């Protein structure tokens, strides 16, 4: 049995060098690009949307530790204060509320919320996205959809 030489074995592995070239450079670039898009917070990952408008994918355990890691310092202080005052029966609701806040932190949603509040977000009426929306609405609710046209 012949063993691959050291030169062959190492040639198959991506090498980190100051000036990567060819396939290695591209592989390294791809890895860095992926790492840049994916934000790590402990055992939490967040993959923001890219150019083809795929949904942001967030994985965040509903544990106090994971939630704390994904909160800002101010939010963390509020979360901990609420935890200290909550009675056992209310624990689930508090954890759920702050878990949602943490998820929105990781997905960058708050920036978009602020744009909406400031009136700077680029928006379109739902009828432009779902052309038969008004028809579906009326079928479901038995009343016409007012929307922007009716205002």
């Amino acid at each position, binding site marked *: 049995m012949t063993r691959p030489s050291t030169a062959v074995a190492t040639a198959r592995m991506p090498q980190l060098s100051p000036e990567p070239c060819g396939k290695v450079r591209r592989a390294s670039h791809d890895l860095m690009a992926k790492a840049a898009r994916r934000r790590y917070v402990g055992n939490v990952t967040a993959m923001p949307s890219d150019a083809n408008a795929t*949904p942001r994918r967030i994985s965040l355990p509903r544990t106090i530790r994971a939630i704390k890691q994904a909160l800002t310092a101010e939010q963390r202080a509020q979360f901990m204060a609420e935890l200290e005052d909550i009675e056992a029966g209310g624990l689930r609701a508090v954890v759920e*509320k702050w878990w949602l*806040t943490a998820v929105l932190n990781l997905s960058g949603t708050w920036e978009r919320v602020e744009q909406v509040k400031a009136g700077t977000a680029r928006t*379109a009426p739902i009828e432009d996205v779902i052309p038969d929306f008004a028809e579906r609405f009326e079928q479901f609710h038995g009343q016409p959809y007012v929307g922007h046209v009716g*205002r």
Partner: protein
Amino acid sequence: MSYSLVITEEISAMVKSPPMDKFTHAMFIEAMINLPVDPHGVGSLVRSEGAFTTRTFSVGPHGLITYVVDETTATVTIVDVTWLG
């Protein structure tokens, strides 16, 4: 009171694009139809500041829609769609 429903351009592209499969798309539309009637009656409150309320609701096992209710203009804006897990 009835609200008008708008959607950010980024999320609009997401809804129209292939990554949102037919099943999820159908659930998304069903959720949208309920929003103009009672946006405060569905989903979970996340934050409330002045006339603006930020809420989320789930679409299927993994989808999470975030929307902002503006009481001044009676507008609901779909801000984000996030996949969980």
